[in-house]
């Protein structure tokens, strides 16, 4: 069992929280600023992760080129998903996106010759030949690690370096979202969010803007998917479980749906919440068996979510007055 004061453990929590935070930004752009309810965002993560892994292992592409291709596929998929579904009303669209998330996971585990099937990317070259794709990533991380080593000494482990990279990317994504929503383009998105008909009546092609925001959000989610794949060294369909999307939604709602600064804060709170309960090993928790204790820990996570929503329905940094405007 890890200790509360174990830097390695918390750095790992930081990596995961950062990746979820990036995913939450993709939802923020789509929902907070354009009103789209997308519950299948994990599909974009899976697509870019798998595209990257397959291109590196099977096509021999370099990791960075393959990663760029993964992001592009995620963006294009946003457009492809949007064309038939965006004409649906918001709540119908939401449920269909859940379906998309499920189907992508399903295809990943069944198209064995392409994806390695249920065993995941390690099976990409067949059962006798373990495949890996993350060599270039490991090199990059160790370079960052050595830079960090100059600054913080032995605390700069590989995990800490990974965390630094993830959070730098998170900040870049935040800045990109910030720039986009303050630009005239982002203004149109917000108009669509507030009143689609009125936006159409002022000559805005609502459909096109929504396709664009699905593509851009898809790319951001794709980035989260890549980091997820890098961090875990091998991916399988269950890694891109649909519940990941709900975790990202939880972070977004915790943050306040239009609060860009709220997302990192909410990611940290979320990470501490999920990881923190692992340290509930003192009495009365210590009297329980490990299975029972893990049930209870997740119950506490659920209860904490309920409590947070009860105390701040507008999110940690959300604007209450804005939330109430029709």
């Amino acid at each position, binding site marked *: 069992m890890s200790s509360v004061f174990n830097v390695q453990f918390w750095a790992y929590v930081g990596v995961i929280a950062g990746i979820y935070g990036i995913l939450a930004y993709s939802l923020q752009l789509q929902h907070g600023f354009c009103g789209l309810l997308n519950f299948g965002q994990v599909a974009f993560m899976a697509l870019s992760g798998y595209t990257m892994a397959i291109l590196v292992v099977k096509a021999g592409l370099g990791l960075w080129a393959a990663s760029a291709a993964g992001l592009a596929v995620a963006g294009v998929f946003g457009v492809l998903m949007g064309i038939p579904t965006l004409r649906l009303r918001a709540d119908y669209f939401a449920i269909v996106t859940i379906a998309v998330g499920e189907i992508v996971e399903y295809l990943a585990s069944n198209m064995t010759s392409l994806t390695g099937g249920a065993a995941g990317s390690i099976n990409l070259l067949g059962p006798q030949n373990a495949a890996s794709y993350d060599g270039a990533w490991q090199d990059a991380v160790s370079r960052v690690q050595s830079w960090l080593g100059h600054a913080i000494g032995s605390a700069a482990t590989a995990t800490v370096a990974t965390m630094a990279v993830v959070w730098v990317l998170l900040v870049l994504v935040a800045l990109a979202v910030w720039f986009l929503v303050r630009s*005239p383009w982002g*203004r*149109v998105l917000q108009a669509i969010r507030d009143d689609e*008909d*009125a*936006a159409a*009546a002022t000559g805005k092609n609502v*459909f096109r803007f929504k396709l664009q925001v699905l593509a851009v959000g898809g790319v951001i989610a794709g980035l989260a998917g890549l980091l997820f794949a890098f961090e875990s060294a091998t991916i399988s369909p269950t890694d891109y479980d649909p519940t990941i999307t709900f975790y990202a939604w939880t972070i977004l709602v915790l943050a306040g749906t239009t609060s860009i600064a709220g997302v990192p804060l909410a990611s940290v709170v979320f990470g501490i919440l999920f990881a923190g309960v692992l340290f509930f090993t003192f009495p009365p928790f210590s009297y329980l068996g490990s299975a029972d204790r893990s049930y209870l820990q997740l119950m506490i996570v659920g209860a904490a979510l309920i409590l947070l929503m009860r105390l701040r329905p507008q999110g940690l940094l959300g604007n209450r007055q*804005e939330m109430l405007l029709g």
Partner: protein
Amino acid sequence: MADAGTSGEARAEGGDVGGPLLDVRAVGVTVGGVRAVEHATLSLREGAFASLIGPNGAGKTSLLHAISGFYRPSAGEIHFGGRRIDGWPPHRVAASGLVRTFQRGRVFARLSCLDNMRLGARDHPGEQFVANLARPRARRRREAEVTSEARELLAAVGLGPKADDLAGTLSGGQRKLLEFARALMCRPKLVLLDEPMAGVNPTTGRQVMERIAQLHAAHSLTVFFVEHQLDVVMAMSDHVVVMAEGRVIKSGPPEEVRSDQAVHDAYLGSRRRREAVGRRGDEALAARAPGRDEAGLR
């Protein structure tokens, strides 16, 4: 901006100059399985200042939705500026210079009034995803233009001090003003106004109508508005279209419409009928008066 005098002259001529700008031919509209508009035909000349009147449920708003692309007509054709526009999506209709407002005054509630106005502007490179990133200078230049134009128009409708407030904090009437001003930001050729004065106090309503009249004169703007305030309709419009039960029953200059018996019966209602209704109401209420004590205070 032209003063009121020239606007009056331009309006007098408005009905006579130019070819048909809007041509609605035998249009039918079905809403939720109900036939709301049936075989409606009308045409507006460029520069016209026309109004659409008719009893409630006559299909006026449905026709407006059809012209602006929000409803797809089940029959007929709509031509605007020589092009057939029925079946076009609303944004394409709007971009072609035919801009409408809504009965309820629909604004972007979580954006500032100024941003609402800026959204009305056309040809903004910043609204194109690629140009927004690739041509920052063009974006900034257009943004500055749009902003000053927006402030001017906001001031003109009396919302200048509200520029930085969220539109969702405006009252119902103020929202309609903002919406109208936003429509003008598009520099439209034709504006369709759905009851511009309903929910706006008469003083402001008159100012709005005067403002519309001025712009009408100054920019060869064609105006087509649904309105119930007959004194305004008759005084201001050079052409009146009357609908009843989904059909256009009369179309012509105000004085001609005013004297038409069919219009009178369908719309204005004869005084005798009203009195009959009133009396029936009195009797109905008098009959049930004894039962009223049941809702007593406890």
